[in-house]
């Protein structure tokens, strides 16, 4: 069935809420943002919170430990800075410290990503930072089918999952934070990511499994989220130059699908990681470590932001990886 990215997520949540009374939703402004869930499941299961992230994210941990399965929303992943303790020292530690006897089945839902001019307190990705915490799964869908399947898997998962939805794929976030209803501003929205076919009946997409979006033998572009679409655009251009690029959509940052990464590296011997999260100390370095410790000989390059995301649209474009940047980086790697 054809759905937008945001509809696909809502379908998954509604399905899970109808199946299991323990699934509840709370967070800032959810009476507006999740109006349909509110109308269907009522205010006992869809609850507005004050702007008190430390309290309500921490409360989600307790609620999950004591039998509920909360989906807790922090609006933008940037705001996780305010309440990181609940994830870093609470949610991620319970299972480890209890010797596996106590688990925390919760989903943290947040929007992420830039490309609409809101600057680096509202446009970060932070998946590297979060995935660096053992005990947290982090998923980043790039299209409606995965958004639905990964949300279902996240709700069914018995440990904490951070579910990140990119704002360029999410029509309502872009409407609220980007256009505000105006017709005279535009954003580079990948149409295959914002809307697409979702297989029925709904089924979970396993967390931690990457997907080959385009097969190729000369170079593997490993990426996720909106950058998958930018990479596919670049791969098409590379093909025009006689270069066959493989595009891997990681879908999960943690757990990371090392098997998929290694088989792409072994096949192409050239790996380019495209990351919208910070380049240093993050996902791209992790991919490089996996490849180099495997003994597979592969050349390697990476692109992504090295600095805070600036406000002006043209400066933002320079910092975030676009199709042209990917094309150039891939071309350079092949020439090397």
């Amino acid at each position, binding site marked *: 069935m054809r759905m937008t990215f945001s509809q696909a997520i809502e379908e998954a949540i509604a399905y899970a809420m109808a199946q299991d009374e323990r699934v509840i939703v709370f967070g800032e402004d959810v009476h507006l943002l999740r109006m349909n869930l509110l109308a269907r499941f009522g205010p006992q299961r869809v609850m507005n919170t004050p702007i008190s992230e430390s309290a309500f994210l921490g409360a989600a941990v307790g609620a999950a430990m004591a039998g509920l399965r909360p989906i807790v929303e922090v609006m933008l992943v940037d705001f996780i800075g305010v309440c990181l303790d609940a994830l870093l020292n609470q949610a991620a530690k319970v299972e480890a410290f209890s010797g596996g006897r106590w688990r925390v089945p919760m989903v943290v839902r947040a929007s992420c990503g830039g490309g609409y*001019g809101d*600057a680096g307190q509202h446009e970060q990705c932070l998946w590297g930072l979060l995935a660096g915490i053992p005990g947290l799964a982090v998923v980043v869908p790039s299209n409606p089918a995965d958004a639905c399947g990964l949300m279902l898997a996240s709700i069914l998962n018995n440990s904490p999952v951070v579910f990140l939805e990119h704002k360029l794929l999410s029509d309502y976030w872009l409407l609220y934070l980007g256009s*505000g*209803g105006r017709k005279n501003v535009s954003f580079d929205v990948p149409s295959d990511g914002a809307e697409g076919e979702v297989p029925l009946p709904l089924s979970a997409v396993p967390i931690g499994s990457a997907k080959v979006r385009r097969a190729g033998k000369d170079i593997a572009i490993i990426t996720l989220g909106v950058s998958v679409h930018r990479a596919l655009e670049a791969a098409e251009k590379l093909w025009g130059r006689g270069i066959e690029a493989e595009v891997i959509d990681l879908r999960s940052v943690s757990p990371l699908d090392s098997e998929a990464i290694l088989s792409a590296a072994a096949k192409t011997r050239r790996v380019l990681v495209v990351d919208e999260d910070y380049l240093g100390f993050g996902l791209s370095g992790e991919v490089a470590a996996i490849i180099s410790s495997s003994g597979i000989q592969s050349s390697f390059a990476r692109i992504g932001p090295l600095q805070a995301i600036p406000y002006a649209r043209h400066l933002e474009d320079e910092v975030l990886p676009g199709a042209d940047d990917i094309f150039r980086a891939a071309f350079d790697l092949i020439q090397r």
Partner: protein
Amino acid sequence: MDEIKLEKLYSQMARMRSFELAASDLWQRGMISGELHLGTGEEAVVAGVVAHLVEGDAMALDHRSTPPLVARGADIKLLASELLGWQDGICRGRGGHMHLFVPDLLSASSGIVGSSGPLGVGFALAASRLRPGKVAVCFFGEGAMNQGMMLESLNLAVSWKLPLVFVCKDNGWAITTRSKDVTSGRLERRARAFGMPSWRVNGLRADKVWEASRRAISRARAGGGPAFILARCTHLDGHFLGDPLLRVLEDPVGQMREIGEPLIKSVASEGATWKEKVAGLGSIGKTISVVALERRLRKLDPLEVTGKLLGDKALELRAEAESEIEAEVAKALKGREGL
């Protein structure tokens, strides 16, 4: 308070309003891309507080940071250029309206709700050690009063007896959630419980805010420690431009068509009991009707409320402010329209 001061206050309010309207116009024309949180409706609060600040005093600002900077004397042309994302903007186009940093005025803003609390504590600490007699003020909304770091800041400021004035601009809405539905007790009493004086004032009257701020700021300057001002006001343009709640009011038929169909489908689907479903719909309906009611109450505009005290003089001051600000914004735009 004498009349000349009221005129000055009103003139600052008019300058702030003119700048916000100019920014709104740039946003409507698509020259500003993302969010824009206007401070229209907060002018009386800002004017009443900022009038007491002198060189060396600091301001910790929230995501509605342009009005305090305009009132404090920041360069209008540079502010406008920043909003437009240009290299000659006050932050070289890198900050935008939520992240304005003006070191000469010891003023910094942030898009993270509640963060002006700790920042204000730090500014006040530096003032007490390096610039005795100078103070810091922090501006924030009542939504931020439920943020942990803000409550921690209230405690820390009292514990360290810092020269800091907390200015809470209470418009009754935490983004699109009604604050009274998610807030316990009364905020002026909450602040008092930390052991500092706390005043509740009419935030539509610059003279009333000025009076309360005079007490709070002079006390802080004299080493008496922090104080709290709760000023009731409104946001004439919602949480941000294009606020979904306001769009429903502006285009009820179009918006209801968009919202209505999935909503009806949701209610009809298997889920909660009918009682719960009705409660859910009631919450949506109530939110929209409260917004609609507030819209009709034009008496909530501080420029009208404070302006009434000045009669025709208010119109004159407003026109003066408008032409000053428009000229400065035009300078920023000069030669670059259509870029």
